[in-house]
């Protein structure tokens, strides 16, 4: 016995790695004992007790290795394997554990689920915004909805859905929020603190948070509600949720609600709620006769026992007495409002492009001549000013022009400048230049033009607060941190004084503007008690699913700018490559909002997954389908002879002759053209047929049964490759073979199946997916499994000439596609189970007849939605080319409809040699298909995707939303009947199938 003990300083390995190393070493031949662990006293004791001598230098941060081997050789091997294991760990750290690149999530909901996000930032055009917002809400994710032009009815619907899911919708038209330290949209980098803000206004919230910062305080969270939330119609839905969440938040001690005047009923309800919650709230509602935002912040500070500072400002001296009108040029609408509210007391109603009630409306674009010589306040962020240009906080050029042109007329120029994330990276120099120019233009006419600027910013803002303030000051402006302060100063310069909002005025008015809503002395205790109760009595769940206490994980659509700002703040953010959905947005919205949809889809999918498929018998179509003489079935949606393509015509003519209904092919075609026979889709009889898929009464059919739902589906027998009926060939060779299949193949197989009992085809599918076959163009494994299972019974069944049995075995074994005709009806059974669920958007059929591509959807029953069949894109046999290929034909797309074929390409990467593409493409295709399907099949697993199930249940709405069409792998038939297969490739259904289907579903919504 030999020992080896080593102390490795500072060799930290995580416990999983350490386990692996230990096991490797212990497994070495000849090693009888191996103790590997950190040098804590207890571990060292253990080693001593085992008889190892360990150096006293070993400490808890050191890795200690103690090996005991039978002899020196074993020990040396043990040390070698230890070194190998340890260096393997080290090198693992030096390259990223990169798996094959995953397909990006294509919808908000999918991205939320993947990233486990708790906040979605959505800024897509207003008509689409509700459906994406709903997608996030259904994935239990709160939403910051930056989009505007969302109608009020949609807003109410969304907020109700959000309340039901216990998530928050901030918006619409919400551009400012701070959640758990992450600044979202236009927000300032303020310090964390004890004030929570609920804001129906972005710049209003920014003013409040910057003042709090200047007072040495900070914000816990700033939750936006959207500008209309406090209206009667929306009823303060988001505000109520925000208040509840802030009341329960441990770090929030006081809440400030910033808004324009709210509907009195809504306000009363919210105040009652606040009393119940016991959280101190200051209502900073801006409006005529109400205190300005600065006053409100001062009140909040006082009631929270905080210090009210002298609000920072930097004046230009001497401040000359001005003569002339007040000209306010604002970027922030709320700041403009505040200016008008304050100034109206002294100057009367102020003309504006966003006038207060009773004030004249003017256009923001008006030149000063037209605008008159009077006072004016213009909001450069109003809709009329931002047509075809970015918001002035980002693109200041319009306002800069106006500053200069006001030089001649203005008595005092009043401006705001809002800093923070999302705003122009360094606006001060340009504004300073404009101010300088304006002032020097004014001084040329012998007068001084005072300029007053309110800078809404915090010390941590990217633009640099100090730099901004000093740049403006150097240009001759007086700079204020309080917008209200700036307005008062401007009025003073005009010789006007207005009572300073607070004290006197609020004394006259009843309490509503400041709510110390729980009894005063217990105010603070109430706050901490409720904060305590909020956490200790976590009761059922944290409000808003813990949005305010969890790390923000964000998904963004349509706002690269904001996503970048979030990444800059080290917030994990995933951008969704959003694109407008296909088809009619209104129809899609209705279908997505259908309350039946989620459950209907779950039901349909559940049935699809549960459906079984057993081959129970073979019988002629006349028996099992009741197909009458003169009746023929074909692949794809309904089709008339006139529109049928070459292969289809050839197949039909051949079938007519086969049934003895015509002596020659010409006669057959003539009769078909004359409408002497009945044609119907295979699908109308729960049947499927590959390629032309023609079924006639005397053809033998596979009969498959789903024991779970008691459905039956049928399929013809596969003729093989080359000149075959399904490719439109119809010569004597074809007809002879068909006769043999009718006389020998069918009956032999029927007898074997009868003797064997039901053959489990669903089990074949599970196995083939793990054997490199996808069930549409690769079916060899299932064919051989079938042959293996039935051969003994074919031989033993008796009643047939052994030569015939041998021929049957040879025939089946020689045709790698034989099992296609088993996989197809098995897939048909899966989709049959999902049929006819009202409100379900699951696709139950995809089929082509060589001219049209048709789909059927669960919620619309047997209705077909069609578009032109496409020509596949792929690889050609021999000297064939694209001009030789017929448009897409066959019911074999039923395999893709049930998760096989192109959907299972990742399980069969070899197929790329047949259809084109490369192996990564095969993997990405399956991954992409997960984006348009409702679920995965737990039984049919794809090994390389770590046994993830095949994508099941195509959702028509997902197809439209993502623009991703189902991927089909298909053989290509020659245009000319009888040529046979010309190649194989990749093809998609036309988008109109899905847009039409969703239109029809929308009509069926209540």
């Amino acid at each position, binding site marked *: 016995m030999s020992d080896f003990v080593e102390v490795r300083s500072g060799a*930290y390995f995580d*416990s999983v790695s350490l386990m692996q190393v230990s096991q490797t070493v212990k497994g070495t031949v000849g090693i009888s004992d191996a103790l590997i662990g950190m040098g*804590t006293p*207890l571990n060292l004791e253990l080693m001593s007790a085992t008889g190892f001598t360990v150096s006293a230098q070993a400490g808890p*941060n050191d890795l200690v290795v103690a090996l005991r081997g039978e002899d020196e050789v074993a020990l040396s091997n043990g040390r070698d394997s230890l070194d190998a294991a340890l260096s393997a760990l080290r090198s693992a750290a030096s390259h990223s554990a990169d798996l094959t690149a995953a397909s990006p999530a294509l919808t908000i909901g999918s991205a939320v689920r993947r990233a486990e996000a708790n906040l979605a930032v959505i800024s897509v055009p207003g008509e689409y915004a509700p459906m994406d917002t709903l997608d996030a809400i259904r994935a239990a994710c709160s939403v910051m909805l930056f989009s505007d032009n969302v109608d009020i009815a949609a807003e109410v619907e969304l907020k109700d859905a959000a309340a039901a899911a216990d998530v928050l919708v901030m918006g619409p038209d919400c551009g400012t929020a701070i959640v758990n330290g992450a600044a979202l949209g236009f927000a300032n980098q303020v*310090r964390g603190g004890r004030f929570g803000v609920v804001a129906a206004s972005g710049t209003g919230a920014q003013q409040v948070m910057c003042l709090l910062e200047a007072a040495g305080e900070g914000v816990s969270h700033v939750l936006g509600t959207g500008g209309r939330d406090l209206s009667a119609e929306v009823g303060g839905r988001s505000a109520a949720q925000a208040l509840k969440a802030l009341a329960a938040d441990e770090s929030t001690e006081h809440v400030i609600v910033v808004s324009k005047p709210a509907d009195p009923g809504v306000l009363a309800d919210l105040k009652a709620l606040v009393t119940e919650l016991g959280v101190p709230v200051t209502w900073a509602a801006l409006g005529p006769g109400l205190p300005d935002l600065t006053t409100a912040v001062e009140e909040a500070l006082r009631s929270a026992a905080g210090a009210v500072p002298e609000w920072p400002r930097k004046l230009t001296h001497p401040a000359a007495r001005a003569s002339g009108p007040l000209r306010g040029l604002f970027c922030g609408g709320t700041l403009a409002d505040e200016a008008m509210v304050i100034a109206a007391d002294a100057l009367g109603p102020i003309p504006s492009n966003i006038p207060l009630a009773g004030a004249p409306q003017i256009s923001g674009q008006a030149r000063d001549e037209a605008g008159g010589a009077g006072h004016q306040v213009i909001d450069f962020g109003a809709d009329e000013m931002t047509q075809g240009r970015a918001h002035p906080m980002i693109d200041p050029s319009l306002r800069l022009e106006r500053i200069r042109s006001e030089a001649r007329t203005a008595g005092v120029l009043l401006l705001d400048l809002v800093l923070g994330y999302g705003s122009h990276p360094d606006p001060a120099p340009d504004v300073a230049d404009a101010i300088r120019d304006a002032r020097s233009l004014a001084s040329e006419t012998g007068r001084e033009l005072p300029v007053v600027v309110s800078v809404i910013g915090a010390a941590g803002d990217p633009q640099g607060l100090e730099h901004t303030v000093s740049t403006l000051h150097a240009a001759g402006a007086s700079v204020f941190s309080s917008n209200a302060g700036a307005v008062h100063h401007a009025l003073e310069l005009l010789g006007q004084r207005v009572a300073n909002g607070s004290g006197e005025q609020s004394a006259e008015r009843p309490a509503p503007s400041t709510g110390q809503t729980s009894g005063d002395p217990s105010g603070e205790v109430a706050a901490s008690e409720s904060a305590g109760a909020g*956490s*200790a*009595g976590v009761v059922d769940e944290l409000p808003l699913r813990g949005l305010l206490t969890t*790390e923000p994980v964000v998904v963004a659509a349509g706002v690269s700018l904001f996503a970048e700002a979030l990444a800059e703040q080290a917030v994990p953010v995933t951008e969704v490559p959003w694109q407008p959905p296909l088809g009619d947005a209104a129809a899609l919205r209705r279908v997505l909002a259908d309350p039946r949809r989620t459950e209907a889809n779950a039901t349909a999918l559940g049935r699809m997954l549960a459906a079984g498929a057993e081959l129970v018998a073979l019988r002629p179509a006349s028996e099992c389908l009741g197909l009458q003489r003169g009746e023929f079935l074909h692949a794809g949606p309904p089709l008339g002879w006139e529109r049928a393509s070459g292969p289809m015509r050839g197949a039909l003519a051949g079938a007519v002759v086969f049934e003895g209904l015509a002596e020659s092919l010409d006669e057959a075609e003539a009769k078909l053209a004359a409408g002497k026979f009945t044609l119907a889709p295979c699908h109308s009889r729960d049947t499927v047929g590959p390629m032309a898929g023609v079924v006639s009464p005397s053809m033998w059919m596979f009969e498959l049964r789903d024991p779970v739902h008691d459905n039956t589906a049928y399929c013809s027998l596969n003729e093989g490759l080359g000149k075959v009926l399904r490719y439109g060939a119809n010569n004597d060779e074809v007809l002879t073979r068909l006769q043999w299949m009718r006389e020998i193949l069918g009956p032999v197989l029927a007898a074997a199946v009868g003797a064997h009992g039901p053959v489990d085809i669903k089990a074949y599918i599970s196995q083939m997916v793990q054997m490199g076959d996808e069930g549409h163009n690769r079916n060899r494994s299932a064919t051989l499994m079938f042959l293996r299972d039935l051969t003994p019974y074919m031989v033993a069944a008796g009643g047939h000439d052994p030569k015939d049995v041998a021929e049957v075995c040879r025939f089946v074994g020689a045709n790698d596609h034989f099992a296609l005709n088993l996989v197809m009806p098995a897939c048909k059974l899966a989709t049959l189970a999902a049929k006819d669920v009202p409100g379900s958007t699951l696709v139950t059929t995809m089929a082509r007849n060589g001219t049209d591509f048709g789909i059927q959807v669960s919620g619309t029953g047997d209705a077909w939605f069609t578009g032109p069949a496409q020509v596949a894109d792929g690889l050609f046999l021999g000297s064939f080319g694209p001009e030789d290929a017929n448009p897409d034909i066959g019911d074999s797309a039923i395999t893709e409809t049930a998760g096989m074929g192109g959907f299972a390409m990742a399980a069969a990467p070899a197929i790329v040699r047949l259809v084109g593409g490369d192996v990564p493409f095969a993997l990405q295709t399956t991954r992409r298909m997960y984006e348009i399907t409702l679920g995965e099949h737990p039984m049919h697993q794809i090994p390389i995707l770590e046994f993830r199930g095949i994508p099941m249940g195509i959702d028509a709405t997902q197809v439209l939303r993502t623009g991703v069409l189902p991927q089909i792998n298909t053989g290509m038939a020659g245009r000319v009947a009888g040529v046979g297969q010309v190649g194989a490739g990749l093809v998609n259904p036309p988008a109109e199938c899905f847009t039409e289907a969703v239109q029809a579903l929308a009509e069926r919504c209540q």
Partner: protein
Amino acid sequence: MHPAAASTLAPDWLHRTWEATVLAALPRAVYLHAGAWTDVLCILDADALRLPNSVLVPSVGIGRGEPLALGLRAGDRVKVDAGRIDLPSGVVECRRTFRPAAIALGVGLGIDPTALGELAQRLKPGLPGMTAAAHEVVAAASEVAATSEVATEDMAGAAGVIAAEDKAATAGELELRRLIGELVGCGPGLTPTGDDVLAGVLLGLRAAGLVRAAAALADAIAARLRKTTSLSAALLQAAAGGWCIPEVRDACFSLRAGNPDDSFALLSRIGHSSGHDLATGFLAVLPQNPQLGAHTHLHPGALLAEAINLTTHTNERTLHV
């Protein structure tokens, strides 16, 4: 350059100019150490477990960016300067502060004992005898709390207690210390099994609102932090303040919602056996409290009658860039 978020529990030296030593260079993380035994800072990428004493770098992860540990070995020195960390793979710059996941006081109240029992049965601690050891610790800590005259009423102070000097010990305290002595540093891993069990007990006591017992336990552990790895000591210290990783907090919520299966899945994600060890400690507390159970309607305030005033702003440091 990688934007990063620093936890409020990051050691002070992150915000000053300092040189730290690399404790570990792992595929998903880099652990740095400087100064006091427990001053460990974990620099984590997007896919690492979110330890509470950490800096998170979301722009690096599986399939994205160079690993944080590129070019680093244990023992290397790394420059830290006011929130900027100079790694060979790039500069990590702290832009934001975050508060780590925590077990809220009293969150364990009202959890259905059936769910607790189901989870307990499935746990596989890293060493034998841990369940019994955990129960002994809980009993000893409760006894010290009940008999001790020095009641620690300030939960935030419990973390501060860790730095406190040894007081003259009562018999109960001695017994508690003896039990702790057999657990701290017990087990081969980076976070030894014994430590994880104790962390679980600390979190469990907090979940049950048993603040005094938690403080007594924290006190006893404080004296022994040098007997285990720096990382584990730092995590124990965090656990005394109720801080944990999100999986542990979420596992607790799953129990509250009656989903022991979800809890189990979450806990199994944590290290080799750490999750199970933590849960073993945690569960040793909850079913024992006779006042807890599905049918209790006790006002949470009754159990918190020891007048806990949660001042969550102490010991926090908000980054102001």
